[in-house]
């Protein structure tokens, strides 16, 4: 393993600095049509009287709508049991501003924009929901066919639920309950390269898809499913991504371009504008998290009650998966033995949200760490000491009963204290991630221990 620890130049570094790296839009395909989208101008509406005839009558213009899609709804993560709920192109309703309704391909960008301009539809606007907290109200607008939150966790549960130990007892025993509400906002990935795709219909009947996807085989599967094509009819060329950060896993363009390439018999190219990227591309989700911790005067965290509302936007996409990861990590780097966690994937009329670096977990890391600081403040305890004593150690278990065999919390916090010059007492300076004993093993942590060797 010669590369480990070595300062190796990027294998594509020279290509990047000499203009040789070929991003999707750098590929010049003669005769490629330009693609543009007709998108919903409203947040929530019934869609009727979609009329693309004027666009279709224009010279060299091809248009696709929901009618052209062999399998209209395909769940991004149906392999993980998350059912399909999102049409590739809107049919009877639109649920987010910017939702694609019709896609056109034309000989020039100007012609494509002109074609989009002559597509019309009627929108019977409905009340929109943007606040996840209101999703549960009796009179709330119903966003999703199944109501306002996802209902297909295992055993058809409508939430991610974690129960561990006895949280009511922990709250009874606490010296203090510390509460906090944490609401990180959506974040737009904003890669410098916008979503882009080119599809070429080959003479042998296959489609070659040049994609900026971060998830090539995944996207290939999604395209094959929507088009009802065997995988061997697709050739996906990818791997050169101008920044993704999680935002290029949604297969946002490939399927529609593939359909247009089939329909027109010509290569097509779709490069999103920066405005589309900001307005219509998926973002990191906003989250609403409420934490209540049962704590003792000397800084032990006996138990945690937590509610998470994960804003999935108009459709599920990857949100149930993100929430699942979030739930497993909801105590962060600390061992809290008594837990009551409930997390919901909530639908709103936002653009559907997606993965972004640390999907599902950055939200709860932020909330947990901020909450630890809040606890330290309320107890008047050194925030490093609070973290060190509650830190995950070998033999501690996670919220979902996974035993830690090599947690790095303690060495990390000690290194931070060193780096910022924070003085620690000898007792805390000497702490290790080794199994809890003595003062570091109070009664309330005994029950959650497990055998790290048995892992």
């Amino acid at each position, binding site marked *: 393993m010669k590369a480990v620890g*070595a*300062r*190796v*130049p*990027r294998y*594509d*570094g*020279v*290509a*990047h*600095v*000499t*203009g*040789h*790296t*070929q*991003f999707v*839009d*750098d590929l*010049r395909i003669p005769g490629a049509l330009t693609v543009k989208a007709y998108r919903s101008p409203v947040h929530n509406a019934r869609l009727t009287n979609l009329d693309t005839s004027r666009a279709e009558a224009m010279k060299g213009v091809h248009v696709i709508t929901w009618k052209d899609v062999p399998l209209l709804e395909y769940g991004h993560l149906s392999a993980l049991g998350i059912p399909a709920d999102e049409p590739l192109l809107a049919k009877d309703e639109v649920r987010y501003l910017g939702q694609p309704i019709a896609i056109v391909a034309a000989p020039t960008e100007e012609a494509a924009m002109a074609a989009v301009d002559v597509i019309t539809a009627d929108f019977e606007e409905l009340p929109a929901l943007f606040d996840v907290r209101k999703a549960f109200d009796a009179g709330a607008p119903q966003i999703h066919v199944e109501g306002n939150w996802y209902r297909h966790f295992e055993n058809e549960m409508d939430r991610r639920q974690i129960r561990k130990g006895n949280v009511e007892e922990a709250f009874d025993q606490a010296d203090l309950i510390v509460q906090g509400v944490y609401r990180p906002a959506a974040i737009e*990935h*904003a*890669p*410098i*390269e*916008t979503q882009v795709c080119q599809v070429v219909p080959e003479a042998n009947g296959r489609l070659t898809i040049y994609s900026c996807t971060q998830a090539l085989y995944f996207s290939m599967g999604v395209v094959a499913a929507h088009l009802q094509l065997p995988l061997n009819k697709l050739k996906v060329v990818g791997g050169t*991504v*101008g*920044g993704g*950060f999680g935002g290029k896993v949604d297969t946002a363009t490939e399927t529609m371009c593939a359909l247009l390439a089939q329909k027109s018999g010509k290569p097509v190219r779709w*490069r999103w*504008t*920066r405005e589309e990227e900001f307005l219509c591309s998926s973002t990191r989700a906003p989250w609403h998290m409420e934490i209540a911790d049962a704590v003792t005067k000397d800084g032990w965290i006996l138990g945690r009650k937590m509610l998470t509302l994960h804003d999935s936007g108009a459709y599920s996409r990857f949100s149930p998966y993100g929430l699942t990861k979030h739930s497993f990590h909801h105590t962060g780097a600390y061992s809290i033995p008594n837990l009551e966690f409930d997390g919901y994937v909530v639908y709103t009329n936002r653009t559907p949200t997606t993965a972004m670096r640390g999907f599902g977990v950055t939200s709860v890391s932020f909330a947990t760490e901020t909450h630890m600081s809040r606890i330290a403040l309320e107890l008047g305890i050194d925030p490093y000491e609070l973290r060190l004593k509650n830190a995950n150690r070998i033999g501690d278990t996670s919220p979902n009963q996974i035993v830690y065999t090599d947690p790095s919390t303690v060495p990390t916090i000690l290194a931070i204290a060193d780096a910022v010059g924070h003085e620690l007492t000898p007792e805390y300076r000497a702490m290790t991630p080794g199994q809890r004993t003595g003062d570091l093993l109070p009664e309330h942590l005994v029950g959650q221990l497990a055998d790290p060797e048995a892992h």
Partner: protein
Amino acid sequence: MNLTVNGVESTIESGPLTSLLDVLRDELGVTSPKAGCEQGGCGACTVIVDGEPRRSCLTPVASVDGASVTTVEGLGSPEDMAPIQQAFTHHYAAQCGFCTSGMMMAAQAYIDRGGSDDPEAIQEALGGHVCRCTGYVKIIDAVGAAARGDSFDMTVTAAGTAMTNLGGVV
């Protein structure tokens, strides 16, 4: 209309209001300048026009009729890289590479007009360039190294960073 791009003169067929970016990429096949925003806000389209760095996405080609344009392809090739290209490689200043062309052209122009290795001056010069991958530190290192006239070991990347006060910089 005519343009001399990286030393090669061409007659331009595109309409007069076509952006220089589209002329370079679509008509001339010079694809190093990128369409990051087409609003002049990200810097990925930056090229050097008659010695000055310009946003090619904002420039109607008729306004640069007869001009001399330099892009990354004109700086150097893999076999013979310009100092700024070597600096970006050695200092790991490119990750995805999409902002890199614009960054280097702005950096080259900055150095050409006598820019120093002062990080604040470099930031001022490249202030209109956005990078979503690197966090900018290594880009500033690379530009400073090229401005200083460092020589570069291309078999290894630079350790650490030359910047000493990151708290106040970004």
